[in-house]
């Protein structure tokens, strides 16, 4: 293409992007079309990918197309396989995109649509995507080593240990909070519960099919599985209307929590082929299908956003979680903007498939942009709801009151119009008994998605769409829960294996049961406390998860920055150093507030003290007094856990700073562990057919 035309086209993209962002940011009217969000996101991503990512790839990392990747050098036909870049992109995206980008933006919408949207866009292009790409690159140059190994080899043993412990703890918190999201979506909903329950035998059937009946026929088996899942959504509606059957699936949150805990243990002990692997296929298909469908529906329908750009809750009084806009919007939206967890996939898993270094930009940077786009769509789905309805669904009973009339009065007093009749009608349309105080983000996201799908593809099936959306969220939350428990088990076996080698044997059943039990007990405890907490639990667990995840991101960025400096690229180290500095500020100030804030809805210790005082004075209602000692202990535990996260973070920072200083004054360092250059034998394009 002629150079001038190119310049002109990019100028158009820039102008459209600026116009869209101005439209979003300056709108103070009644509502705004969601198309502006899509346009803003598309332009920001395009510009960042074409210029910033390309510059990083060419100038900072100096990607070398002629250099053989680990997949080529260590090819073994099984895990090291040079693979077509679109296929690697698909694997990488499916691995990084979980429920996080759906839940975070939904919760952060309490501040209005603007803060979350801006952070998703800016955080992704300057932080998250850079972290993913840089980690992928460094791991590729180091025979696909994991983040923990790279931290140990390049920074030092302390950094390595911190990364390992950080990963393990984040896993525990993540699984607990995701379990809580599912429990809250299934609570007293026979339709949702029976549909989610049906996914387990369906996954087993698919597992059996591809293992024994028709070995390796993954596509066949998955197609059958997806059809069965859709039937399960319809069947759930039938069960919901059947008086004798619906009682079987109508349960309290606590019962469901115990079921999830038992399920998690069973899934971690069972062989992967029976449940984990087939469920993963199904969830990946459903996830990609639904996300595509949502994008198409939003583009066709162009729904209007009803949430104000900024709400009064930026002052820290929000009902969904306490805390001011800064720093809490930045830890509430972790996945979708920047997520430390991605560094675990980008190191170790994905580099084993990478055929050529030039694919790193598309896979590392590009897949994160797509995940960020998923977060934008979740933000749209949350904010198309009338704000009154959004807050009625997401505000815990502990904040607005158990009674529908009290809750409505409270929400109206904030200036958001909604009536009891409106909520009852909505619940009826969605096939639920009540939509009040359905915290966790999943129900409100499902209502948002159902109304978008309902408008695009026919309104008569709202209840079906709602439960389809719940099934969609639940199926991959459960996949993360299974996979996470299993990974936690492996890590624990690995760690304990240093003390008693026999426990490190992943096939020794007593060790499997013992370590799985420990991991399940870990997240099960937090899940249990979350369920009995009258404020819904999500308000405690999600910030904890956010802090942990951003801590891991900071560790990954430390490793990236450290390696850049050691490679003599000090002048470019800001590409990871700036997001790192921002994350350190955000994580540390969020952690500080979570521990020491006087506000009982923010500070763990303040909340514990407040409950203790009330318990001593006997002013708590009896049902609350019964659980108060648990809650007090838990708040204190959360405070110590947060302190621990911050401590780990600062240890890694100081270790990186030490490495940097030694480099600057010319003292000896651990050597770079980059594998020597070996020319690629893969001739142009034969591998990419």
């Amino acid at each position, binding site marked *: 293409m002629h150079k001038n035309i190119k310049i002109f086209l990019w100028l158009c993209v820039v102008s459209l992007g600026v116009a869209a962002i101005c439209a979003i940011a300056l709108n103070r009217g009644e509502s705004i079309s969601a198309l502006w969000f899509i346009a803003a996101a598309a332009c920001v991503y395009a510009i960042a990918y074409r210029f910033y990512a390309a510059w990083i790839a060419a100038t900072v990392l100096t990607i070398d197309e002629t250099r053989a990747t680990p997949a080529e050098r260590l*090819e*073994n*036909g*099984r*895990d090291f*396989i040079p*693979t*077509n870049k*679109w*296929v690697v992109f*698909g*694997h990488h995206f499916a*691995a*990084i995109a*979980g*429920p*996080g980008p759906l839940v975070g933006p939904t919760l952060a919408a309490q501040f209005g649509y603007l803060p979350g949207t801006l952070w998703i866009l800016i955080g992704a292009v300057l932080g998250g995507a850079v972290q993913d790409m840089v980690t992928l690159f460094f791991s590729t140059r180091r025979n696909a080593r*994991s983040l923990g190994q790279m931290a140990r080899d390049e920074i030092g043993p302390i950094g390595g240990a911190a990364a390992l412990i950080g990963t393990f703890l984040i896993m525990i918190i*993540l699984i607990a909070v*995701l379990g809580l999201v599912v429990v809250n979506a299934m609570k007293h909903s026979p339709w949702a519960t029976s549909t989610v329950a049906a996914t387990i035998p369906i996954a087993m059937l698919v597992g059996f099919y*591809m*293992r*024994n009946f028709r*070995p*390796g*026929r*993954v*596509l066949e088996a*998955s197609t059958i599985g997806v059809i069965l899942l859709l039937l399960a959504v319809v069947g759930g509606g039938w069960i919901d209307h059947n008086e004798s059957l619906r009682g079987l699936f109508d349960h309290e949150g606590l019962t469901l929590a115990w079921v999830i805990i038992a399920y998690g243990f069973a899934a971690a002990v069972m062989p*992967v*082929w029976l449940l*984990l*692997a087939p469920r*993963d*296929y199904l969830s990946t298909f459903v996830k990609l299908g639904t996300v595509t469908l949502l994008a198409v529906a939003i583009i066709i329908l162009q729904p209007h956003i009803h949430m104000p750009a900024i709400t009064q809750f930026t002052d820290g009084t929000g009902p969904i979680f306490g805390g001011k806009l800064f720093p809490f919007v930045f830890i509430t939206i*972790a*996945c979708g903007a920047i*997520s430390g*967890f*991605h560094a*675990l*996939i980008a190191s*170790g*898993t994905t580099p084993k498939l990478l055929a050529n270094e030039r694919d790193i930009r598309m896979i590392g940077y590009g897949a994160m942009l797509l995940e960020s786009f998923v977060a934008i769509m979740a933000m749209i789905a949350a904010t198309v709801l009338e704000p009154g309805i959004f807050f009625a669904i997401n505000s815990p009973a502990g904040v607005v009151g158990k009674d529908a009339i009290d809750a409505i009065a409270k929400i109206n007093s904030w200036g958001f119009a909604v009536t009891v009749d409106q909520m009852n009608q909505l619940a009826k349309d969605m096939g639920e008994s009540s939509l009040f105080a359905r915290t966790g983000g999943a129900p409100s996201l499902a209502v948002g998605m159902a109304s978008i799908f309902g408008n695009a593809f026919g309104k008569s099936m709202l209840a079906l769409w709602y439960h389809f959306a719940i099934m969609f969220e639940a199926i991959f939350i459960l*996949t*993360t829960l299974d*996979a*996470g428990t*299993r*990974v936690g088990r*492996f890590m624990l076996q690995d760690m304990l294996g240093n003390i008693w080698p026999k426990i490190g044997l992943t096939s020794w059943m007593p060790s499997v049961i013992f370590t799985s039990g420990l991991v399940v007990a870990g997240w099960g405890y937090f899940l249990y406390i979350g369920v009995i907490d009258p404020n819904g639990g999500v308000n405690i667990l999600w910030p904890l*998860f956010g802090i942990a*995840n951003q801590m891991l991101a900071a560790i990954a960025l430390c490793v990236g920055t450290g390696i850049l400096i050691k490679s003599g690229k000090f002048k470019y180290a800001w590409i990871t150093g700036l997001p790192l500095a921002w994350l350190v500020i955000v994580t540390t100030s969020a952690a500080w507030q979570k521990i020491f804030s006087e506000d009982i809805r923010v500070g763990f210790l303040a909340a514990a003290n407040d409950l203790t005082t009330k318990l001593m004075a006997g002013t708590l209602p009896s049902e609350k007094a019964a659980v108060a000692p648990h809650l007090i202990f838990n708040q204190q535990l959360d405070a110590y856990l947060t302190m621990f996260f911050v401590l780990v973070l600062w240890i890694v920072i100081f270790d990186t700073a030490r490495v940097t200083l030694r480099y600057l004054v010319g003292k000896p360092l651990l050597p770079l562990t980059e594998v020597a250059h070996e020319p690629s034998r893969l001739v142009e394009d034969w591998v990419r*057919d």
Partner: protein
Amino acid sequence: MLKRIKHLWHILRRLTGDDAYDVYLKHHMEFHESSLDAPAALSRKEFFKLWQDSKWKGIKRCC
């Protein structure tokens, strides 16, 4: 057109691991068939077992 559909189908199979056994057989033919004491290729069922188990060793899913 037909070629393009074929290509998409190929990508889909590769993406899902539907053709993992074919890829393995090709690799086996290229790298092991030539040596005399080469082990025989695994059967589809044996291969799938190994493949599936090794796929789930590390961190595969995140938040």
